[in-house]
């Protein structure tokens, strides 16, 4: 791979990964030596700075990630706050409820229970600090989610074990296991 193709491949990965990603991991993916990847990343970061792009490539907590450039923080915050409500939507609340009672649980399974796609709602819950990632499903490799201590705090309980039992709210449905069966395992 040519130098600029290598840099482009790095850009492609960095543009879509959520968490900062380490040099070693990138090197393994591109099947390149770590020092070379390190050099390419530094060169990219310098290039974005020199060109005055609206984004920058920074190494945070041992990993690289794209961020918006601080110079535009005012505009970005204006956009972020625009249309933000302090209240969760019904869809977000129900998704949170499913995660609370089924954690750790993947998005495909939540979607199967709720009957709708929940990708963006889960993202909102993560942004709101109510839900966090909890590893991956060993079979499907899907990311699992669980509630946070902030969620417990807002609900006013000490632990997930203190969540009220929900069976009494399910008329004619004695065993939760039946629901499990009906929707099957994680769909990946």
């Amino acid at each position, binding site marked *: 791979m040519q130098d600029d193709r290598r840099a482009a491949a790095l850009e492609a990965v960095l543009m*879509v990964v959520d968490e900062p990603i380490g040099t070693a991991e990138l090197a393994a993916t591109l099947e390149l030596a770590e020092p070379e990847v390190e050099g390419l990343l530094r060169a990219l970061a310098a290039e974005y700075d020199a060109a005055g792009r609206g984004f920058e490539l920074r190494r945070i907590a041992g990993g690289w990630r794209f961020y918006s450039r601080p110079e535009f923080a005012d505009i970005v915050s204006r956009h972020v706050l625009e249309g933000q409500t302090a209240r969760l939507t019904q869809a977000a609340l129900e998704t949170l409820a*499913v995660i609370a009672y089924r954690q750790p649980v993947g998005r495909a399974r939540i979607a199967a*229970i709720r009957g709708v796609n929940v990708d963006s709602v889960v993202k909102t819950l993560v942004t709101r600090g109510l839900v966090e990632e909890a590893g991956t499903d060993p079979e499907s490799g899907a990311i699992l989610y669980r509630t946070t201590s902030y969620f417990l705090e807002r609900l006013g309980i000490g632990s997930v074990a203190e969540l009220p039992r929900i069976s009494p709210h399910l008329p004619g*449905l004695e065993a939760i296991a039946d629901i499990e069966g009906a929707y099957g395992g994680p769909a990946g």
Partner: protein
Amino acid sequence: MALPSEELPEPAPGRPGFEVRLENFTGPFDLLLGLIAKRRLDVTEVALATVTDDFIAYIRALRAKGEDWALDEASEFLVIAATLLDLKAARLLPAGEVEDEEDVARLEARDLLFARLLQYKAFKEIAGIFGQTLEAEGRRYPRSVSLEPAFAALLPELVWRHTPEQFAALAAGAFAPREAPPSEVGIEHLHAPPVSVREQAELLGVRLRASGPLSFRALTSDADSRLLVVARFLALLELFRDRAVAFEQAGPLAELSVRWTAGEGWTAERLSEEYEDEASGDAQSLAGEEQHAG
């Protein structure tokens, strides 16, 4: 060529698929359809029975190999074959001279069937395009990252008013199995007394054997509903098919006389079951409803 697994989309072109072997045509079923669609092959020239026999053999072979999508392909074939059959029936009708409204209606029906077939094909092709596009687009990954911590901190404090109990009730609602939404307005609540064609046949048999030839009017004189009249009419047709009765009519629109021709040993058990399955099913469901109502 390896057969695709169940998860894989199977765009119509390129799939090994079902081959048709006819006197005037040999090739994939899809192509046959295409030719008919383009009117290069007259649907009346296609021996549908041969196609069907071949298809059944093909599906058996697939199932023997454990191919899961045999069912998919079978249902698809049924749709197309049924449409072809309708189309063929419409084509075979005398259509040379368009004289009255009925002929026009027949021609229109034929065109509609043809259009329906084409529409079905069109959606199949579009589905193939969708499959390819989705796959190509799947190679692009959107940037969909969580908010940078600095900006997440700016979000207004969440308003939270749920008690644990309210939250649990919400969860219960989210877990409750959803009823499949209705695709049409239910008519189950409309009560109609169950009428069995077979029972009516039995009844007609008893009467005809006891009293000799009777007119249709006499046979239905005690029927208190249109449904009952229809059931007796269908029963007569069934009986006629089973050669249990004969019809006599002096002239057009004259009184229809029904005569018993089967022996004493005849029973309604011999009748076709096509009405009976439905009728008994209805009877059960109606009975169940009445229990609830009572």
